[in-house]
């Protein structure tokens, strides 16, 4: 990142190749609209380019990048329907308990994976974000708490609830 700040364009290419996948998935799964997701994803990178001079080598680069993405997504939610998006709790499709209890019986794993994404998309935004930051960015609970401006316990609780819901949904799933 510092090399890119000093004018090395090749350094940016490396950074982009390394982080584009997790960031793209994080944005898309938070926004749940492919076209809008692409737009916001590009906007995140533009903000990153503009803010490169402000980067300090004090923290994790990935945390800083996802912080920019988080802020951009929150701006989007506030502009759209914040009360619906942030507090929405859709009914999770019930997954069959038997399937979850016997993972070896999950003949088609892809079906379960698709179901997981479906379950993820209907999670409340804070829980979904916490889960995605954990899975995609690989951040610790402390880092997630700082990024989302919550307490450590709050972040931990969100993650626990997200996993419980996903697990419950998958366990009730019958492919």
């Amino acid at each position: 990142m510092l090399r890119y700040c000093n004018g090395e364009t090749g350094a940016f290419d490396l950074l982009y190749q390394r982080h584009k996948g997790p960031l793209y998935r994080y944005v898309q799964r938070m926004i749940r609209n492919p076209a809008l997701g692409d737009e916001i994803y590009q906007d995140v990178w533009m903000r990153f380019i503009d803010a490169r001079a402000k980067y300090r080598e004090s923290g994790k680069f990935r945390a800083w990048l996802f912080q920019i993405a988080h802020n951009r997504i929150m701006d989007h939610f506030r502009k759209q329907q914040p009360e619906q998006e942030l507090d929405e709790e859709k009914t999770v499709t019930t997954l069959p308990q038997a399937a979850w209890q016997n993972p070896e019986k999950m003949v088609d794993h892809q079906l379960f994976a698709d179901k997981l994404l479906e379950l993820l998309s209907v999670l409340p935004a804070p829980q979904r974000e916490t889960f995605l930051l954990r899975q995609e960015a690989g951040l610790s609970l402390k880092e997630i708490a700082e990024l989302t401006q919550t307490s450590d316990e709050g972040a931990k609780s969100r993650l626990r609830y997200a996993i419980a819901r996903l697990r419950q949904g998958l366990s009730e799933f019958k492919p």
Partner: protein
Amino acid sequence: MSDKQNQTPTEDEVLDLLYDMQTDSRPPADLDRRILQAAHQAVETESQIKPREAAQWHVPLAFAAVLVLSIGIVSTLQREEPELLTNAPEMTQMQEAPARSQDMVPDHKPAAKAISKPRRVVVPEEPPAESRLKKEGKQLRSRQAEKAPPTSMADQTMALPEVSVSTPSAPAQTEQLQPKKVLRTPAMKAPADSMADAAGDKLKLGANRMQAQSTTQGQISIASKTEAFAESTTMEEAEMAPATAIAASPAGIPIRLRAIQKALEGDDKTEAEKLFRTFRLQYPDYPLAKLKKELGEDFVNPLVLKPAPAPKK
């Protein structure tokens, strides 16, 4: 209990595995290209802006530096030498005056050499020349009054045994005719002030007739000037006239000889000797035999053999 503890990480692992199966989602190539292009452009623009910004700072900085230096130099000059800045023309004249008077100082050099220095030509017909002559006459008076030697002006000038004298061959010698450079004859008995005034008037008269001459025309113009001078002045006027004007011409020879003869007739042998020495310096080529004939061998022979007295300091 232990089963529960073992089950939970397994469930999480299954969840992670299931999630990882969906991680093949990547941004489209078009989006990648646009972002990379934007990043490269941003760096290039920054590298172009930086030198421009630096140049924008350099210009006012250089201007300010020049301004500060100029003010500093001017203020320093004003503090150290205020007269130089306020009275620059007068100071120049005053500085020129000692330089000209140095020509009068005995330097054992041929007169022509001293005169051959390039000098500023003063066009006497212009009105400022007259006023300048008067002004310089006053300056001479004040300068002489300041120095105030115990002896008279005539004595002071005659005390200099070797004097560089202008010759007819010298070009553009109008400045040499200024009062401060006048060689006074012993016959000039008037006080210093009246002498300076008379010399200034005569100079104006002579300067009006003399034009600024080129080097080749110098002899002709000076010769014509001296002829006109000889015609227009009586003997007394010639005695009061500047010595350089007389000495510069052959017409001055009889006047000088007459003055020496007068001094001899008046039994003022010391004065006659001084006049004789001055004459010899001014006209070194004048035949000694003629001098002996006109002034007498008894007077000339001892002076020719006797060395000149040491100059007064």
